[in-house]
């Protein structure tokens, strides 16, 4: 039996390897008695230094197993940006609460490492393992605030449902493997037509795993509970960064591998997208807890993003990728404000403008961006998605999306309305760390600048 050989070049892998090393060191350091914010800031600076270097490592590694092309780089930068901001949030949270453990920094780093590998993986085993690396880190992160009942509940739900989805996905992969005799994407692409029935069955189970991670209805049920129960920095992280990676991988698989089966997979993705957009927005309407509201809103956003995939074109996928960047900025930004104000009940946002004009203004920007009103970046990317969907002939889908965008405007604006138009009922017990301010400013300016000069988005 001849053993396939692959060249062991791992130039393209260097960023991941660096992060691995760095995360391990941070983990080891976190066992020592070292100032927590020092750890946070070290990681932040490390990542910030790393981000501009990522484009340098464009290329392949391990033959075709690992691909670092333009899209992958874009997604990785997004992931790392999200990670940096999440780390800042975590830093501030650790400072003021003393409940989160230092290990969380390493866990976040491992999670983003998993995502980066996921983005680049071109082979199902690596793909699966990277996904697990990400998932396990996230389970642990959610469970970190272990003395909180709600956090525990969230972790249990996340873990159990995540496990279920993993198994279903694995089953799908097995069928896919059975149908194509390989796990390498390149071979799969060639072989998929030979056994199209089985591979489609595998694909549909496989996709369930994705749908779970990006919380499409009806696989969304975990997300509001987890978002609400998890510590807010972790929520900010979970709600954005993993989705970047998963959407990246999702798009690759659908658009690059199953291009020829566009009709089949788009048929049910359309159903899911419609349900997600409609129900996600409707569910967000009556929410009283802002984290929960944002959870449903991000469910609805997933619905919009899927429209880009449904388009089934490379451009559609690009639009998804750019959406993820903006989505990360605005969603993390919104959660940052939630952390800063230390307040989850929307009722308590009344009159916040009086106490925190800057936070309120940023929240306003995020809310309008989430709604998709120009001149924020949220508009540009949403426009892009709609553009691609209509180009692919899904005008009616876009009309539904648009109508429910109006519904979404209602609940986003409610936050703005509470902050600006109602009289305050109490002065918030907020905290005001440098990390938070930096994070908020970064996100808000990012959303605005990308909205006005969308050169990086298209």
């Amino acid at each position, binding site marked *: *039996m001849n*053993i*396939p*050989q*692959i060249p*062991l070049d791992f130039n393209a*892998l260097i960023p991941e390897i660096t992060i*691995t090393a760095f995360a*391990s060191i941070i*983990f080891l350091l976190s066992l020592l008695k070292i100032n927590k914010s020092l750890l946070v800031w070290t990681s932040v600076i490390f990542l910030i230094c790393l981000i501009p270097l990522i484009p340098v490592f464009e290329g392949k*590694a*391990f033959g075709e*197993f*690992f691909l670092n092309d333009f899209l992958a780089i874009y997604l990785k930068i997004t992931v790392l940006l999200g990670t940096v901001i999440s780390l800042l949030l975590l830093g501030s949270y650790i400072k003021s609460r*003393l*409940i989160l*453990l230092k*290990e969380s920094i*390493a*866990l976040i780093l*491992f999670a983003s*490492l*998993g995502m980066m*590998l996921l983005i680049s993986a071109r*082979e199902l*085993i*690596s793909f*699966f*393992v*990277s996904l*697990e*690396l990400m998932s*396990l*880190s996230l*389970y*642990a992160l959610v*469970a*970190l605030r*272990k*003395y909180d009942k709600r956090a525990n509940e969230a*972790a249990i739900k996340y873990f159990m449902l995540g496990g279920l989805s993993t198994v279903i996905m694995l089953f799908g992969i097995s*069928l896919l493997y*059975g*149908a194509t*005799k390989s796990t390498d994407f390149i071979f799969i692409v060639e072989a998929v037509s*030979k*056994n199209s*029935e*089985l591979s489609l*069955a595998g694909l549909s189970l496989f996709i369930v795993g994705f749908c779970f991670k990006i919380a499409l209805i009806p696989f969304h049920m975990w997300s509001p509970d987890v978002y609400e129960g998890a510590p807010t920095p972790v929520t900010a992280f979970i709600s954005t960064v993993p989705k970047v990676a998963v959407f990246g991988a999702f798009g690759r698989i659908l658009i690059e591998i199953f291009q020829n089966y566009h009709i089949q997979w788009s048929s049910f993705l359309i159903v899911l997208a419609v349900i997600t957009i409609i129900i996600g927005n409707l569910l967000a309407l009556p929410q009283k807890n802002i984290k929960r509201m944002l959870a449903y809103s991000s469910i609805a956003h997933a619905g919009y993003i899927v429209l880009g995939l449904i388009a089934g074109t490379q451009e559609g996928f690009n639009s998804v990728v750019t959406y993820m960047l903006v989505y990360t900025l605005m969603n993390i930004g919104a959660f940052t404000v939630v952390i800063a104000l230390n307040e989850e009940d929307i009722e308590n946002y009344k009159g916040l403008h009086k106490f925190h004009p800057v936070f309120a203004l940023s929240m306003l920007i995020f809310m309008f961006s989430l709604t998709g009103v120009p001149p924020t970046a949220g508009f540009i990317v949403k426009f892009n998605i709609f553009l691609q969907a209509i180009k692919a002939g899904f005008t009616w889908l876009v009309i539904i999306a648009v109508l429910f965008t109006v519904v979404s405007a209602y609940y986003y604006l409610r936050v703005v309305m509470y902050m600006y138009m109602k009289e305050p009922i109490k002065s918030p017990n907020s905290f005001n760390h440098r990390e938070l301010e930096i994070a908020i400013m970064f996100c808000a300016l990012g959303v605005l600048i990308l909205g006005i000069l969308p050169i990086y988005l298209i």
Partner: protein
Amino acid sequence: MNQIAVDQAFFIYFYISLSLLSIAVIASRNIIHSVFFLLIFLLHVAAVFLFLNAEFLMVIQIIVYVGGVLALFVFAIMIMNLKEELKHRKFVKFAGAGIFSGLLFFTVFYGYIRNIKLSPEKPLLSDVNVLSSILYSYYLLPFEILSLVLLVALIGGIIIAKKDPKEDK
């Protein structure tokens, strides 16, 4: 008896026993019984691997699952010292719906894959040497990532499970 008939007979045995064992796992009221049924179940699976020419997998199955995972379960049960299950309901209230949706899944799924035909290949004759070569060269990347997975599981498991007197507020 020819090889195929033997295979089929064994397969029928495994099919029945694996099904019954797994049902036993979910049906037994005592959690320790569940663990033991799971143990037997896992051993049977190991035997199935043998029939599929995957000796190495059989060994791994026994070592990892029986030696590792099940031990973990037992320890966990012992740490938690759970006995209430015996007094309480075993199933959730909406078990009927659960069974129904499970069966629905089975029907749809199996109805789907029942008819598939795979182009027959020569069955694999296992060779551990080859397997190892592949694992450490061709699949080096996932293998390395797997190590990280285990590391994370380690970190996660420990920090979640450990009691931290300092932060216990």
